[in-house]
């Protein structure tokens, strides 16, 4: 329960603090959720509207990356205290995977 530690001995203050923090967390959660649905709508709309695929594919990929970020940081709380090591290793793994893919699409001839 790293995230629910209290710094004071005053249970009343502690309760107030946690209430406010949870309320804020909930607000962000809902906002992110709305945004994610909105992004999904945009993606579908972009395809349905029949734009050029050179426009649609990058946009969808960009939105997908943002959604993964939302997922990791707001739904899975990766940015909070006590998540430094997993977050570092995830980013390193993403870095290595990205480098591999980059190499395979650039310097391998087919």
């Amino acid at each position, binding site marked *: 329960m790293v995230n629910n530690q209290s710094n004071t001995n005053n249970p009343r203050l502690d309760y107030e603090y946690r209430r406010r923090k949870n309320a804020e967390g909930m607000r962000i959660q809902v906002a992110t959720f709305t945004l994610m649905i909105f992004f999904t709508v945009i993606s579908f709309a972009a395809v349905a509207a029949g734009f050029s695929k050179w426009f649609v594919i990058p946009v969808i990929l960009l939105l997908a990356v943002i959604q993964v970020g939302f997922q990791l940081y707001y739904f899975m709380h990766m940015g909070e205290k006590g998540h430094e090591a997993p977050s570092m*290793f995830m980013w390193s793994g993403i870095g290595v995977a990205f480098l591999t893919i980059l190499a395979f699409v650039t310097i*391998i001839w087919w």
Partner: protein
Amino acid sequence: MSTIAQKRGFASTIWDYLTTVDHKKIAILYLIAGGFFFLLGGIEAMLIRIQLAVPNNDFVSAGFYNELLTMHGTTMIFLAAMPLLLGFMNAIMPLQIGARDVAFPFINALGFWLFFFGGVFLNLSWFLGGAPDAGWTSYASLSLASEGHGIDFYALGLQISGFGTLMGGINFLVTIINMRAPGMTYMRMPLFTWTTFVASALILFAFPPLTASIFMLTFDRMFGANFFNVAAGGNTIIWEHFFWIFGHPEVYILILPAFGIFSEIFATFSRKRLFGYSSMVFATVLIGFLGFMVWAHHMFTVGLGPVANAIFAVATMAIAVPTGIKIFNWLLTIWGGSIKFTVPMIYAVAFIPSFVMGGVTGVMQAAAPADYQYHDSYFIVAHFHYVIVGGVVLALLAGTHFYWPKMFGTMLSEKIGKFTFFFFFVGFHLTFFVQHFLGLMGMPRRVWTFLPGQGLDTGNLVSSVGAAFMAIGVVSLLVNIVITTMKNERVGNDPWGDGRTLEWALPSPAPFYNFKQLPLVRGLDAYWLEKMEGKDTLTPAEPIGDIHMPNPSFVPVVISFGLFVAAFGAMYQVDDKPWAIPVLIIGLAITFGAMLYRSIKDDHGFHIHKEDLMEDDDDNKGVKA
């Protein structure tokens, strides 16, 4: 090695080691198995050097020579150097951070047994129709064309042992992140722990590409896939990239723990704090980071184009910077120290010039245009033996002498140790120094013979004589081990007298629960700090209480054995043997059955009770942490 003195029969000792989940016993298993494979690889090396001692030699056939060189490389990297380092990590790292065991003792045992069965499987190829013969890199076009089952043994054996290594790496990461004693901050960790940490992270990221590429190779050879088959639309270069995306970090997986061992030795026997500790940590992490951006320097001649070659050349040269930081820090650690030339220290001092020579030729090869000249010549062979033998193997020998008392409770003879060092070190330079020039004169690597009168005769003979010297060195080390074990003169906590880190505060060997009370770490070199304040014990961080321990388990052996059996099935179904598919299924059933058993059965471990710990104290066996 249990501290509870009791007479044990031979069979019960064997059973104890088969079922152990204790990191110190697993370390001994790694040391024995890795040492065995080291001797095998050494014998293969001797046969190679006998064949190349004189021109036009016919001591071995060309085909057998290919098998020898392939198995020498594969065995030395995957089955000797890495397991031996994992052995030292297992033995020392938990003690250094003040932990009672690794985070997942069961997985630790599983990792060892997977490595062991994978290694045995690979070496059974000698008796079952021929060993792999496409070089340790096993480039796909060549390995797909290889006849017989050699490459199948390579693919399946390395796959199994690779699972084990990956598990070991993850285990060490979790252990170091979560199980450090109170006060042991990241920047107070001994350098061997730091290098273990970074090497484990490299294992975590480097082994998946290897696993993926070996799976593709396995399916290409055994199940009719065409990943690398150009004729069927595959691409053979994919293997090379995958292999080196793994292969380059792999050499840092080997050298970083070696750096760690030497850092401990330099500080201990110079009786000084390691110079520039924080820059050492920084350099270690930077080497690990850069290690993933340089793999294509093994492929300069493939034809990646000038831009890619230039990028990878510059990135490769950049690695010389953190490595240089380390070299200077070691020199400055010795500088002004009160130096004791024990055997480990002699190895450490000899390591610096040897490794620097390997590093300098490395920077030479990093220049892509020049590399076209060096590529696939003996210059390359000289270079990587200078870094691997001059770095990793010297560290393994030094570490064997340095940590032997902590692992076995006896001191290896210093006199024989110096003899070993002399022969090994002189032999090493004799063997490999001349190979630089053989390469520059045009001798290609991986050839089974050469013609007389081309200026290669003397150099090759010198090289072979050097190899004999190295063999004498290794044999004298074995003699040393046997004599020391027979004499069995027990030593105390800190046999070198200058131990700085936590492990030297424990009895040699440490009791199976390591620390009776977890220690409070008050700075870098925690034990040294306590000694400077006139104490010979660590400050405890907790009262004596019950200690929770894991139960021994035979399941890791069964899981690994199942994969070993399955590998035979996978391999022989190529020949349409009727029993092959059933064997594959039975093997997998054993593995998954054992895993299921492990998941269903509750195993809560046991407690060592406070009273027993107190009693242990009276026998003067316990840790006074």
